[in-house]
């Protein structure tokens, strides 16, 4: 991928409801980038299926690569999946706060879209010690596995419902 020419990338974080792809499909100039969604790679697996079903070919990046795209001014908008919302912010899939802070810093809008499924607060240690079913870390290492996190309102530009309408 050349990073020199002007790009319009929509970054999607978390397992969003698949109707988001109907919204994004209407914007032909937008490229869809999805993040892996460690530890279980659920976002990578579910979103790529939803996207391909609508004949949109997504590009996968690892969860640590979003910053590069922001640094290169390639990101047009960010979509985060949320499962709970109040006036102060939202509970989003883990990784949402990273993109929210990056969006805020780079003046890129951060939109919330409902999640496709409820995620528990914490995962198991073994989820991070393994990758795609393969053990990667030493056996005796501790792991901390938050699966959701709080994204304060100050980072959020708009919130959408499954019907695409703003609320």
């Amino acid at each position, binding site marked *: *991928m050349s*990073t020199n020419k002007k790009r319009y990338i929509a970054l999607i974080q978390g397992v969003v409801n698949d109707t988001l792809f109907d919204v994004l499909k209407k914007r032909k100039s937008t490229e869809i*980038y999805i*993040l*892996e*969604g*460690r*530890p279980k*790679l659920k976002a*990578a*697996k579910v979103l*790529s*299926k939803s996207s*391909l079903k609508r004949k949109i*070919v*997504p*590009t*996968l*990046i*690892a*969860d*640590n*690569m*979003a*910053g*590069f795209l*922001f*640094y290169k001014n390639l990101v047009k908008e960010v979509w985060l999946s949320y499962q709970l919302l109040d006036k102060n912010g939202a509970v989003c899939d*883990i*990784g949402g*706060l*990273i993109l929210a*802070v*990056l969006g805020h*810093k780079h003046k890129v809008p951060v939109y919330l879209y409902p999640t496709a499924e409820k995620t528990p607060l914490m995962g198991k240690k073994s989820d*991070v*010690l393994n*990758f*795609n*079913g*393969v053990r*990667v*870390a*030493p056996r*005796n*290492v*501790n*792991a*901390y*596995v*938050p699966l959701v*996190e*709080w994204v304060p309102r100050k980072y959020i530009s708009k919130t959408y419902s499954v019907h695409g309408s703003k609320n």
Partner: protein
Amino acid sequence: MIHQANPNKIVINESPLFWPARLQEKTLLVLDETLLPDKVRYIRVRNTGQAVEVIRQMKTRAFGQFLVVLNTFLLELARNKNLSDQALFQKIVQTAEALNNSRPTFPFSEVTSIVVGWAKKALEQSQDVGLSVQRNIFGYLQGIRQQRLDRIRRIAEFFQDGDSVLTHCNVSGELAMAASLCRARNKKVHFFATETRPYLQGAKLTAWELKNTGSDVTLIADNAVASIMADGLVDKVIVGSDRSCANGDFANKIGTYQIAVLAKEFDIPFYVLTQPSNKVKKGEDIPIEIRDENELLTFSKRRIVQKAVRGFYPGFDVVPHELITKSVPIDVH
């Protein structure tokens, strides 16, 4: 293989990642970092072509690349003892060119140009080129080793008793040895290591070597960084660097930029181990290596998403100097 180091009159065990390549007669032994933590195995490198492949395939990286570069010259000197001084100089120039083209982001030419400069000077002064270059490399490496041991002492001084420190990727043994030094001084320091996709150096190398020193280390996924910072679980961040610029910007393993942005957002000091250089003015000018998408899309020979999905894998990113609290340099020039 356990060496011992003495960074401040306290003897600590040396991490295998601190000095991951060494010459044994006409063979260069390079620690295969891709096999850790399951196996500690050294690849036998016998010529420049093999050295370049070891670098390209990321069998070694960061400081390991630096060692491979310098030792490859020693290897070629050992293999070509019978060449004339002029022919040996040409061999050194060819070796430098091959190494310079191995990967784009790490400043290989800055290291190789030092060696070529020694060879040129020896040739101009009618000295034995092989002997002169060999002596210079040995002396240079000894100086680098001493500077790194000194930096370990400085890193250990940054950490306070009770600190929780986040690190990303792997800083080639220095953090693990600083952690040992802290333990020897009765300072309790906890570490968070990001797993560092796609090669998982944080999970495979950093967690392994910190655990081996008896340190308290917790592994997190790369996407959990903001969560632990927002929850007040991180007191300091420390990372390594692959290339520095004249204005203080630096390039490091992909993921470092967003950690630096978050550290700033949550008011957490951000430290970086650097090898300062003035060759590149600012971060935007550093060439960033874009690696094969299949290194991201497959793991252990299994595809992680459907075949139609594309991947994008930048190997590094750049951190602007304004996000850095303090650089901890060594002089490699």
